[in-house]
């Protein structure tokens, strides 16, 4: 019996070590290269010999030709993320209020359309979407990206809001209605406050979706001033003169906000909710 427990513990330990090495290797590699002094990327050691934060400093002060618009691009990413979050929450909550609380006729058609959007791969629509944005005259405009991402984030919002709304008794709305509240008042004063946990969860999801998205931002944003961080980051991957230490430092700085948000809201995004994080 004791021998068995010993083996069990040893097994747990071995598996834990394997999982830690497996999970952290590419992340360690990012850190390792970002800590190399400039020009020293082509080395053969596996730990930082002379760690230097030069490349991080270079990113923050835009001190390299490749980074000359870094803060602008960071702001672009943030702006797109904030707008996508706002509109996904607004449209999602309005729609689920009308379908789930007001029980509008043919509401099921709308929720089916949303569900269908959720299961269509977004990348499959990229080519016609690009064409359409050209026709609309929205090329190189952040609003084209915002439109695409709102279209793909809102279905998930509708889905979650409807599920969550079922836990709120409909009698709450009815009594307000009898007291003479208009639908808009019920939406603003009763529905939104009661839905706060779901709003936080979906808001986090939409923000992370927009921050991490690459394909649409790459296709639709072409000038250096309108680009977002992932597009700028990916620009030099195929070039032989890639400033790898700066790229990795940028990759780490770009990863910090979503990782922080994820760990901060981990409990609120709760088990089931995390599922939506797949899309995109």
């Amino acid at each position, binding site marked *: 019996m004791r021998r068995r427990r010993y083996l069990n513990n040893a097994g747990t330990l071995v598996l834990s070590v394997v999982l830690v090495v497996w999970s952290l290797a590419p992340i360690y*590699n990012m850190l390792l290269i970002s800590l190399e002094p400039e020009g020293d990327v082509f080395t053969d050691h596996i730990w930082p010999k002379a760690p230097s934060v030069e490349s991080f400093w270079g990113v923050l002060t835009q001190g390299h030709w490749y980074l000359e618009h870094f803060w602008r691009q960071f702001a672009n990413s943030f702006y797109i993320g904030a707008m996508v979050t706002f509109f996904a929450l607004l449209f999602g909550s309005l729609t689920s209020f009308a379908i789930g609380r007001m029980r*509008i006729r043919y509401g099921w058609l709308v929720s089916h359309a949303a569900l269908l959007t959720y299961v269509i*791969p977004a*990348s499959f629509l990229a080519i016609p979407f690009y064409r359409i944005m050209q026709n609309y005259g929205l090329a190189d405009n952040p609003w084209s990206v915002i439109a695409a991402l709102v279209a793909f984030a809102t279905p998930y919002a509708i889905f979650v809001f409807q*599920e969550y709304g079922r836990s709120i008794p409909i009698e709450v709305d009815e009594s307000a209605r009898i007291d003479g509240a208009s639908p808009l008042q019920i939406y603003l004063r009763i529905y939104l406050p009661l839905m706060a946990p779901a709003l936080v969860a979906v808001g986090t999801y939409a923000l992370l979706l927009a921050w991490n998205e690459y394909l649409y931002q790459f296709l639709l944003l072409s000038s250096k001033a309108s680009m977002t961080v992932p597009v700028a980051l990916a620009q030099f991957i195929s070039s032989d003169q890639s400033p790898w230490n700066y790229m990795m430092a940028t990759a780490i700085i770009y*990863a910090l906000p979503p990782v922080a948000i994820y760990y901060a809201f981990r409990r*609120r995004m709760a088990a089931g909710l995390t599922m939506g994080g*797949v899309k995109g």
Partner: protein
Amino acid sequence: MDGASVVDVGRPAIRRGTLSRSLRGGLKGGEYTWAVAFVVPYIAVFVAFVAYPVVYGLWMGSKMSLYRELFADPIYQSTVVNTVLYLALGVNVKMFLALLLSGFFMRPGWWMKALLLIFVLPWAVPQISTFISIHWMLNGEWGFLNNALYTLFRVEGPSWLNDRWMALGAVIVSHIWKWTPFWTLILLAGRMAIPLEIRDSARVDGATGVRGFVHITFPLLANLYLICTLLSTIFLLGDFNAVTFISGGGPANSTHVLATLGIRDAFEIAHPRLGVAAVMTALPLVIPLVIVLMRRLRTAEVQL
């Protein structure tokens, strides 16, 4: 939003009070206008940015000659093989690992909780950051992997991304690395939602270890596992980033998948219709998947 809702799979949707409500008269005039005003913004977004691109895409890819051109293209032929391999291995290995690891993470103790926090990091870090890092890691001359192999074992590693099968393997392994944590969390939530009494009484009856898994845990998780597998299949089919950043479709365009080939045809060789056609050839797989998923997600009320 509690973990339990994940596993509401299999419970029929009978919570509809719609009928009695509409018998009581439904919405009055002014209220109806409000309700319509509330759904119009989303409907507008759906029509302009989802339905219109879908129809436009179907129209762009509607000429038969495109498909003759496509099928004759050797790059397309290898792309189909890659896509099938990517789907078969990427989805199943990942989901199976997630199933096993979710059982592992059920163990008690602070160590497991700490390990889980590290384990989800690959998923929490943005795709572009990690995939670029992996790309450089696999560099034959200066990459971390070969440096580590040499330092630790004095083995000269190969040039990983210069061979079709190794490059494709690298893409698949990276996909598994990136997404296993996420599906593990989902299946872990599913396991947690199995009532303690069921697990306890199963243990009393002698169903522990493998037998407990085969007779108790897996039957209860099977529906969730199936939905996760189907969703993961469709998401992987649309995955653009892993191939783009790890192998770049190379060497010599031998590791493309349908999603990246479509973008390459449309933007690198400037033949958008051919790109749409390439993506359209995935429809025979996408349509049945979408139909099954829509049914399952609707009736099962799985909390996504």
